[in-house]
Structure formats: structure tokens, C-alpha cells
């Protein structure tokens, strides 16, 4: 199998009066088309790990590869480009830009990438919104739609640049059961049909159990994979 994400011996300390060893020697890899969940109690370091894997946090030791390219130690601008092109994000609090319409929010990462024309991007964005069943909301301001809809907009945004990897930080964390199921089904479809790799941090036991693989963390260590 083709590894999309490789993590080798990652350690992370939080500075403070008493330095805190947040991540202890973590190594694993995620293959193409694999849907992996990370579980663990609050404070076990799973979110911290996700931010390192997402390239946003660069204060760690060890090595991180995305599509066999070493990410550790690259310039901030290069990392921004990696996030733009290869990684899609879905956060717990959906994080849409409030001034923009749903459609604009979805188009933004592609406009930033600047590879396709505006018309093409708009077509793609509408296609993704349609697939997620919220095409009719496209021209509304992103603050005017419901929580479940927002999360789907965030997924559409994560998909717009056809990334190889989707990361979620409790993407169903504040959704009701029905919407949670919906989001899970979308993720499942993406991994099976589009061969996307997904790495989801979650507290939701049902959600985690349905994934291809479950990584359980405790005290900054992977205790079960």
C-alpha cells in the first residue's frame, strides 16, 4: 500500500514552569484510502498530534512525511502551500468565514491555489455542495445556515482542492446523531470511492468503531493501533 502520511518518533514538549512531555515517541503511517480514527481521553495529546500532522504546529522533534516528502523543517510558506493543496480540514466548530457566502467559503482555498479558472472553481464548488445536499444554500451567508449544514460546507471546502488527506478534529463533536451519521457516511464514501485518506480525532465511540482503523492514545502515547 501507498503511505500518504508517515510519522516517525514524534515528541512534543510544552514549555512552562514544569515542561510537559505531551507526545512521547509517536510513530505510525496512514495508507491511501484508509479511514483512521484517533481516540483517547481529553488531554491525552490527540489534538496536539493532529495539529502537528496538519503542519500548523512546527514545534516538535521527529519526522513527518506527507506523500513521502519530508515536511519537518520546511519554510512556513511551503507548509501553507501543502495545507492548501494536499490537506483538507474539518474542525469541530466548522470555522467558516462569516462575511462570505457558503459558495465563497468553499471556493476560497481553490482561489488561493490559483490553478483553475474562477468559473471552473465555481462549478466544482457547486458540484461538491450538490453531492453534500446543500447546493440550495450556496448563496446564503455562512452564518445563516444550521450547524449540520455548516459542517457539510466545511467538508466541501476541505474537498475543493482534491486533497489526498482529510483531517478532522472532532468533526461530529457538536452535531446531533442524524447529522453525525450523515457526516460519517460522506467520509466513508470519500475514502472508498475517491481513495482519500482520512484521519479523524473523535470522542464518538460509534464513529470510531466504524472506521477502518482505530488508534487509541493515552498520556501522549499510542497504546493501541
Amino acid at each position: 500500500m501507498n503511505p500518504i502520511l508517515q510519522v516517525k518518533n514524534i515528541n512534543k514538549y510544552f514549555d512552562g514552569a514544569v515542561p510537559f512531555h505531551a507526545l512521547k515517541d509517536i510513530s505510525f503511517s496512514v495508507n491511501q484510502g484508509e479511514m483512521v480514527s484517533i481516540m483517547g481521553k481529553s488531554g491525552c495529546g490527540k489534538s496536539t498530534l493532529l495539529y502537528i500532522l496538519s503542519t500548523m504546529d512546527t514545534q516538535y522533534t521527529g519526522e513527518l512525511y506527507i506523500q513521502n516528502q519530508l515536511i519537518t523543517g520546511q519554510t512556513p510558506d511551503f507548509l501553507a502551500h501543502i495545507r492548501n493543496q494536499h490537506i483538507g480540514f474539518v474542525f469541530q466548530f466548522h470555522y467558516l468565514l462569516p462575511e462570505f457566502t457558503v459558495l465563497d467559503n468553499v471556493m476560497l482555498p481553490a482561489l488561493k491555489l490559483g490553478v483553475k479558472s474562477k468559473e471552473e472553481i465555481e462549478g466544482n464548488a457547486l458540484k461538491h455542495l450538490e453531492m453534500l445536499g446543500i447546493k440550495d444554500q450556496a448563496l446564503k451567508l455562512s452564518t445563516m445556515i444550521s450547524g449540520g449544514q455548516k459542517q457539510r460546507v466545511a467538508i466541501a471546502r476541505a474537498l475543493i482542492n482534491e486533497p489526498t488527506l482529510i483531517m478532522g478534529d472532532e468533526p461530529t463533536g457538536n452535531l446531533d446523531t442524524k447529522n453525525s451519521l450523515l457526516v460519517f457516511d460522506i467520509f466513508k464514501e470519500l475514502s472508498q470511492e475517491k481513495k482519500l485518506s482520512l484521519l479523524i480525532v473523535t470522542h464518538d465511540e460509534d464513529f470510531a468503531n466504524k472506521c477502518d482503523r482505530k488508534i487509541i492514545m493515552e498520556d501522549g502515547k499510542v497504546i493501541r493501533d
Partner: protein
Amino acid sequence: MGFNLIIKIAIKHLFTRVKQSAVAALGVTFGIAAYIILMSFMTGLNSLLDGMILDRTPHVQVYNESKISAIQPINQWEHDKEVMHVIHSVQPQQNVMGIQNATNILQYLQSRKEVIGITKQVAVNGYFITGAIQLPALINGVDIIKENDLYNLGDYVVEGNFKHLAEMDNAIIVGVGVAEKMGKKIGDVIIVNNIKGVQFPLKIVALYQSGMAELDNRQAYTSVQTAQVIAGLGNSYFTNINVQLTDMLLAPQFAQDIAQIFDVSAMDIQTANAQFDAGSSVRNLISYAVSFTLLLVAGFGIYNILNMMIYEKMNDIAILKAIGFSGGDVKWIFVSQALIIGIFGGLLGLTLGYGVSVLIAHTPFEVDSFPNIKTYPVNFNPDFYILGIIFALIATFLAGYLPAKKAEKIDPVDIIRGQ
């Protein structure tokens, strides 16, 4: 492509905070408008005052000054260096007040190509007499047409026609102060006594007001010939020769040349108006200082508002960074916002400044000192407008750059974790 997107986001942010953006822009508007108004008005006033003095001051004045001879007869004695001599109370020799050798000087002046105009004057002291009243008189014999061409003398004539001076014999233009004190009006005859007591009746053809009471109470103009007659001297007697040059800056060198060649006194315009120049430059300095302060205040306003905006937009900054915008992109979003505020505020400021300047330029301003000025003087120099918009852009850029730099450094993880 990339920059269009940044501008688009910047404009979106500004329009969702219309009030704040407007307040920031208005700060710039008032700063720039005040700068334009202040500079237009100040320099307008300055050039009026400059004009008042410079218009009336010849570039080079040639005259004969009574002074003690530098070489006394004793110095010419062959043993002068060997002995010590002490002479008390050295007095100037009595001589004629006029310029010696005037004809030669005139000839020489005409041969110099930088000279564009020469006027000859005869100044005579005397008294105006009516009934029992005697007023000291300073009578200037001039070629009125030429004086008007070179020094706009006509601008200061408030009543009557000054050209009559050239057309009629025994005509005189007197200061308004003289006319008022002696109860004379145009067409009346005024008696002038010369210092030897000879009386000359002259007809008033026009009234003159310089704005300086000192002059207006004594000054009178008549023709050169009449003045020469009052002085009791011949037609080659002149007390002043005034020279106008192609360039004012040539005056000091020119004055030196004349003084050396002909052994007369020659004063250039710069020396004559030294204290006036100082006043002008201090006034300009004050205008610049005030304008700069206003723009600085506007700059702090923008800094404040952008700083606030960045705190409000922390989440958005984190999202933008998470979805692949670099720190530089985020920085430019905020710098663009500052510049957009600067451009709009600045252009509005120029318009407002221009509007108020036009208003000032139409406000009546009638004072005795400036008989030919009816409204406030305003200088509509395009340089102020160009400089104003450049100032606006620089000030807003700097005010925006510092907060934008902060936004560039914001760590998205801190924000996202904090939720």
C-alpha cells in the same frame, strides 16, 4: 490572481465593518483636508505678504548715502604710517544728496543684458501746507507709467487716475493719510513747501494707500521734472535708480558690481528684505508642523482600528492560515485594508480640502492694508494635493503595517485550540 483574492478579502472585511472603516477613513479625510486647507491658505497669505513687499522692492536700488569718507585727508599724507594721529568728531562732508555721475550709471545699466527695467526717482523732503497746518512731506518724483509696469504702483491707487501724473504738469498723488488730515480731495490744489521755503501749488489727481500708515501720512508722488524743480536742482539730478533684473537671484552680485564700479551705494532685494524672508519661512514651517501632527493623529486612529479589527478577526486569520494562506498573505490582507482606507480617506480629504479652500477664496476679506484684495488669498497649488495623497498613503501604510505584522505572526493552533 493571488493579489485579487487578497484585495477581495480585504474589501469584504472592510464592508462588514462599515462604521469602523468609515471612522478610520474620516480620520485620514480630516487630516488631509486640514493639511490642504492650511497649506493653501497659509501659502496664499504668505505670497500676498511677499507680493506686498517684493512687488514694491526693486531688485537693486542705487543711491548715494551720506557717510564719513573712509580715507580722510590725513591718511593721504606720505608719513601717515609713521605717526599716530587722533581726530575727534569726524563729520560727513557736505555734498549733494543725488547720485553723482547718474548719466554714466544709466548708460552702463542699459548695456547690461540682465537688466529688464530701470526707473529713476527724485526724492525730496518738504512740507504740505494748508492754512496753519504743516505736515512733513516725502515727495517722490517718478515716471509713473514705468513704475506701474515694474512695481504695480497703480494697485495701491485707491481713488482717481494715476496716469494723469504723466499727462499733466504740476500734478501730485498723495497718501490717503495726507488727504484726510488736510481735508483735500481729488481735484484740489495742495501747497508743497520745499526746505528752502519756496511754495509750489500742485493738483491732486489720485489718492494712494500702501497699507502702511507711516507712509500714507507722508508719501506723495509727482513727476520727475516737478520733483527736480521742487528740489531746485537740474534735470540730471536723481536720488535713486532702481533696477529690475531678469532673475531676482542675480541681484546681490549685480549690486556689488555697481557699487564697485561707480562708488555709490547699491542694495539688493535680499538684503532689503532679510527679516521678511525669515518670517515667511517660519510661517511655512509652522504650517508643515501642524499638518504633520494632524496626519500623525489620523495615523494613530488607523493603527487603533486595525489593531481592534485583528483581534476581532483572530478566528478568520486562523482559518485562512489553516486552509493554506501564508502569513504574508494575511499580512497583505490587513495592509491592503489600511491602504484602501488611506486611498478613500485621502481622496475624500483632497475633495473636502479643495471645497473648503474654494469657500475661503470666496470669503470677503477687505482691509485697508490690501486695497486690491477683496477675498481671502488661497493658493491652489497642485503640489499640495499630490503631496497630500502621498502623505495619506504613507501614513496609512505605516499604521496598517504594524498590526498586519502581528496578524502575520498569529499561530492558528493557539486560536483553534482555544475554542
